[in-house]
Each structure stands twice: as C-alpha cells, then as structure tokens.
C-alpha cells in the first residue's frame, strides 16, 4: 500500500459528505433527488475506507513498521513547523478498522432507519463528515491535526443531536454537548499548547514528541497530562463532563449507536493511548485517570439502575463501560483498554441498534415500562439483544467477558484493589440493570396491543452481523490461560505494558469471581423483573432517578450565574457606568456653556465694564512686567 492512500481513507468520506450536502441542498432547493443516490454515496464512503484500512492492515501485518504521508506544511511559523500528516501505525489502523467496519454497519442500518425522513441526504452528509473527522482524528500524526478531527467529531455530534432542530430540546441538547466538549477541548488545547511551547520547535509529530518529551520538566508534564485528560473527559463523557451524553440521546438512534457508543466516545481512550509516552512518565496522573474511570463507571451504573428510558439506560451504560476503559489506560494497560473499546464497539452498537429497532417497532416508544412481551413478537431482536446483554454483562464466552475481565485483572495486578472492587461491583450492577431492561422489555407482562411497525431488512442484516461480532470478537484477545495468544496484545505490543503477571490459578479464580458477579446481577434482575406485572406503575422519582440532580445543580451554580454576570456587565457597567460617564462629560460641557452664555447679557455697560477689566488686567500685567 502506498502512503498517499492514507489520506484517501479520510478524504473519501469527507468528499462524499460534501457532495451529499450540496446535492441535498440542491434537492430541497431545486429538484428532488431520489434516496437511492444518497444511499449509494453514503454507503460507498465508509466501506471503501474500510477496504483501504484492510489493505494497510495487511501491509502492517507483513512487517511494514508504519505508514507516513505528509502532503504539505500545514502551518509553519518561525521554526515551528507542523505538517499536515497522516500516520498509519498499528494503533491507528486498528482504530480505522473498527471505526469503518462499525460505521458501515450503522450506515446500512441507518439507511433503513431513516428512510422515511425528509432529511435523509442531510443525515448521511453529517454521518460521513463525522466518519471523516473521526478517521482524521485517529490517522493524524500530530496533535494539532488530531485536534481538527477532535473538534470535527464534536461539531458533527452537535449537528446530529440537533438533527430535528425545530424542537428546542434537541438543539439545547446539541448545544449542551458542544459546550461540554468545548470545555474538554479547552483543556486539550492547553495541553497541546504546553507541549508545543516546550518541545514544539523540535517538531510536533508524535514521533518527535515521543523522542523529546524527556526535556519537559516533570511538573509541566503533569499539567499537560491532566489537561489532555480533561479533553478526554469531555469527549468520553467521564465525571464531571459526562452530562451531555444522556441528553445526546435526543438524536436519531443510529447517531447514538455510531457516535455515543462505537466511535466518538472512544476518542478519549485513543488519545490517552496515543500519548502513552507522556502518561508512562507520570504514573500518578495515570492512577488519577484510573480512579476517575472507576468512579464514572460506578456512578453511571447506579444511575442506570433507575432509568426508564431505554436509550438513557444504554447511554449510562456507555459511560460506565468507558469508565472501565479509562481504568485500563490509566493503569498503563493501553492494549487492554483498546481491547475493551473494540469489543464494546460491537455489543454497544448492537444494543443501540436493537433498541432502535424496538423503538421503531413500537412507534417511537422509549419507556421500557410501556413495553413487554416482545420475545414472541420480535424474536430476532430478542436473540441479538440477549447476545448483547450477555456480552456487556461479561458472561463467557461473549466478547465483553474477555475484555472486561482483563481490565479487572490489570487493576488487580497493579494492587489497585479499590479500583478492582469498584470494577467488580459495577460489573454486578451492569448485568443487573441491563437484564432489568431486558426482562422488562421482552418478558414483561404488560402486553402492548397495538400492532408493530415492520423492521426492514437493511436494519436486520447489520444486527445479525454485529451479533456474531459480539459473540466472537472476544476471542481475538483470548487470554493465555486458555492457551490462546492474545492477538490484541501482540498487535499493539508498543501499547501493552507487561506488568507483574499473576499466576494462572489466581487468574482463573478472579475470572470466576467476575463471572459470578455478573451472574448475581442477572439473578437479581430475574427475581425482580422476570415475572414482573404492572398493576402499580414504576415510581419515577428519587435522587437516583433524577441523576443526583447534577443538571439542576450546574444550571443553578453556573449557567444562571453567568447570565446574571452578563446582564450586569452589559447593563450596569457598560451602559450604566462607562457610557454614562462619556455622556456626562459632553452634556456637562454644554451646560457649562449655557451658564457662560449669561455673559452675553446684551447690556452695553456690562460689556464696557468687562472691557475695562481686561484693560486694567493688562495694565497690571504691564506694571509687573516692567517693574
């Protein structure tokens, strides 16, 4: 594979999105264009990128260390040169592969999901723009270029969340997402700038940074690490910047599947892995990250237990799963984290798409307690959702088991027993709330009489494919215990630190414990909800249900205050003080003039007297002058 094709991986979706956008505007302004055209363009892009990605994959497999393509100097001031560059190493190609794969799946799914929507073309324009930005994010070879993609995905999520912009709520959610991301980006930018100031002049590609990062003083390095992680918090919805993700469910379901499950939210994890050469030098920050991850996982899981909106449940589960990934990368087990990213992409996309199918089938009903008994009526969905649930609950042999268990193992190996405990507990919670949702939806008694919307084939196919993926993708990282060779670790050998490895027996015990945790959760859910009938409806209140009132708190503490300050500044300070002063000066002068005007009294004698005063002052002056 020749290097310049790297650029095309990004360019193809970008170009297609531009074409889509223009032709969409054309179709609404001038004459209608059929959806087939849009579908063709839209699906072409991620698939062809995927093909290219595969090509590079094999290239790397056959021993090419890395691909690098730098078409032009993006910005060159003084001795700070930044090239527009694309780096295809094992990590980025790994990301490219699953982004484009999952992306294509979701494209196919969306083609069915959105087919009635009049914004069809626009949707895919945004979608491909998103894919392009995401690919740029992972393929960039310097933080600044990465930042272009970084903000690009933020923008796309804004656009897609606010896709139905006529309703205020969606747009507000979009704004919330964008601003929260911006807060993160602020941190990210600060981090980049610090790096730039300290090592920028020696080159600003990852390679150069990795080479010279040593010259950065340690305390600065800590600042950099933390600020970069703040960026990750924003993108990957960790405490405290997670607030946007649940609201982001306002967007169409494929959006949630693509952005808020499979790809964008994992950007933070990728970023930390990408900057591993920094975090390796500052393990303390790593531990901090791990703790943030752990608490996010726990916190989100707790909230998810009481949610009734199907997509909200999934959203919180996403946050929780991302927490796991950050535990891993925080502890330096980047490959494990990325492994979880990989598996999670499958089952979470699957979950969302299944949920989407249910929502479509039930005429946009999202409250799980208004569903029930869907097992018989949507068998396919039932099966795939079962797979997905088992996967996320970490039941072997499904994908989630291997990755999650490996993360817990790493936590244990690092003697971070608290994190391990939290992880374990969260695992139990996870399986509980997932199966709560599962049982209620599929086994629940409140039979919905109204006939169901049929689900098109283009939605079913990707479901099946992903279900298979969710089942078997875990075996890619089969632990040595089971005689497997952990391919992920081999592939990402630069990003996998081999810490003190526990002996096999202990490892198996730990596995057993985590599986048990999962099973306990399922059992509880089974007891509570399997035979659940709904004479009394679920109580929708309580601190957990209201997400610990965090949104209200933010609104009260920050947003309102800022608005008050704004009014104060513009009304009191500007108009009240500054402008008033200016005006007073002028009017004061005019009034002074009016007073002085009295002297023009048209009284001849007064004038004469005035002259006399002048005369005498002159003579006095002369007397002094001449002595």
């Amino acid at each position, binding site marked *: 594979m020749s290097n310049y094709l790297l650029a095309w991986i990004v360019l193809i979706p970008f170009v297609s999105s531009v074409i889509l956008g223009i032709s969409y505007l054309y179709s609404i302004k001038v004459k209608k264009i059929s959806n087939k055209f849009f579908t063709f363009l839209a699906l072409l892009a991620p698939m062809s990128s995927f093909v290219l990605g595969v090509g590079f994959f094999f290239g790397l497999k056959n021993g090419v260390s890395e691909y690098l393509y730098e078409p032009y100097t993006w910005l060159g001031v003084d001795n700070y040169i930044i090239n527009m560059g694309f780096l295809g190493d094992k990590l980025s190609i790994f990301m490219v592969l699953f982004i484009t794969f999952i992306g294509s799946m979701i494209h196919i799914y969306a083609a069915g999901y959105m087919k009635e929507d009049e914004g069809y073309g626009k949707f895919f324009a945004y979608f491909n723009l998103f894919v392009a930005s995401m690919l740029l994010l992972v393929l960039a070879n310097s933080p600044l270029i990465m930042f272009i993609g970084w903000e690009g995905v933020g923008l796309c999520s804004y656009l897609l969340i606010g896709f139905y912009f006529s309703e205020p709520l969606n747009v507000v959610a979009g704004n919330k997402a964008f601003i929260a991301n911006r807060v993160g980006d602020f941190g990210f930018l600060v981090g980049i700038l610090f790096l730039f100031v300290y090592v920028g002049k020696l080159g600003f590609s990852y390679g150069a940074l990795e080479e010279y990062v040593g010259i950065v003083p340690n305390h600065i390095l800590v600042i950099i690490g933390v600020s970069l992680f703040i960026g990750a918090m924003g993108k990957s919805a960790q405490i405290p910047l997670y607030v946007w993700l649940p609201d982001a469910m306002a967007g169409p379901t494929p959006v949630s599947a693509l952005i808020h499950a499979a790809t964008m939210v994992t950007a933070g994890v990728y970023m930390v892995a990408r900057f591993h050469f920094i975090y390796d030098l500052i393990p303390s920050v790593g531990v901090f990250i791990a703790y943030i991850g752990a608490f996010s996982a726990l916190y989100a899981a707790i909230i998810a237990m009481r949610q009734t909106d199907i997509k909200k449940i999934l959203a919180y589960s996403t946050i929780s799963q991302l927490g796991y990934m950050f535990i891993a990368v925080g502890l330096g087990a980047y490959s494990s984290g990325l492994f979880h990213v990989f598996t999670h992409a499958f089952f979470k996309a699957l979950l969302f798409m299944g949920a989407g199918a249910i929502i479509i089938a039930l005429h946009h009903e999202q409250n799980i307690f208004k569903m029930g008994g869907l097992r018989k009526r949507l068998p396919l969905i039932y099966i795939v959702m079962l797979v997905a649930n088992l996967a996320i609950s970490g039941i072997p042999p499904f994908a989630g088991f291997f990755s999650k268990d490996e993360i817990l193992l790493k936590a244990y190996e690092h003697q971070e027993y608290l994190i391990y405990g939290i992880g374990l507990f969260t695992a139990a919670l996870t399986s509980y709330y997932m199966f709560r949702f599962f049982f209620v939806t599929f086994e629940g008694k409140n039979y919905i009489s109204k006939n169901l919307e049929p689900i098109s084939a283009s939605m079913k196919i990707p479901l099946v494919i992903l279900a298979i993926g969710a089942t078997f993708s875990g075996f890619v990282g089969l632990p040595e215990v089971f005689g497997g060779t952990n391919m992920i670790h081999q592939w990402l050998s630069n990003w996998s630190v081999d810490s003190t490895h526990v002996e096999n027996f202990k490892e198996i015990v730990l596995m057993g414990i985590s599986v048990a945790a999962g099973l306990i959760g399922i059992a509880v859910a089974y007891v509570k909800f399997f035979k659940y009938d709904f004479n009394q409806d679920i109580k929708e209140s309580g601190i957990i249900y209201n997400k610990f009132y965090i949104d209200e708190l933010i609104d009260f503490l920050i947003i309102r205050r800022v608005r008050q300050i704004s009014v104060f500044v513009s009304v009191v300070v500007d108009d009240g003080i500054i402008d008033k002063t200016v005006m007073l000066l002028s009017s004061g002068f005019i009034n002074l003039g*009016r007073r002085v*005007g*009295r002297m023009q009294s048209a*009284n*001849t*004698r007064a004038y004469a*007297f005035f002259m*006399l005063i002048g005369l005498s002052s002159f003579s006095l002056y002369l007397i002094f002058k001449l002595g």
Partner: protein
Amino acid sequence: MEVSFMSYILLAIILFSMGIIGVISRKNIFIVYMSLELMLNSINLMLVTLSKHFGNMDGQIMAMMVIAIAAAEAAIFLSLIVALYKLKHSINIDDYNTLKQKGTL
C-alpha cells in the same frame, strides 16, 4: 502764572477717567455719548499739550483730525439714538437688550 505741562496731562487723564466711568455707570444714552466725547476731547487736550511741549504743530493737526472723526461719529451716533428711541421709547441704555443670549441656564 505759568501752568505746568504735567497739570495739563493730569487734567486730560482726569477727564479721560471720568469719561470711562461715565460710560460704565450712566444709563442715559446721551450721557454715555457725552462721556465718549469727553474721552476723545481729553485726548485732544493731551495732543495739543504735547504739541506745545514739543514745540511743533503735529499735535494740533492730529487734534483737528480727531475732532473731524468725532464729528462723523456724532452724526451716526445721534441718528442711531433717534432710531432706537423710535423703536424703544426709552433712552435708558439698559432697555436695549433685544439681543440677549437665549437658552442660558
């Protein structure tokens, strides 16, 4: 008896001051006018004295010219006074305040 040069000058100065004070203090326009004439004539006196002092006729000639000018001024002055009286029916100089500045505080 011989009156000294300075005393003429002093007289002239006194007359001049009277003139000025008259212009400022008196309300009757005729008296104002007379005070002006008084000032002029005090200067004439001064000039004549000077010409006597220097022993040439320049001062006298100047005085002549001044008187001529004064006559011209007198003409215009009186005509204006007449016009003003017709309009204002007053010879109090303070009554002529049509042109007072408006809009003052």
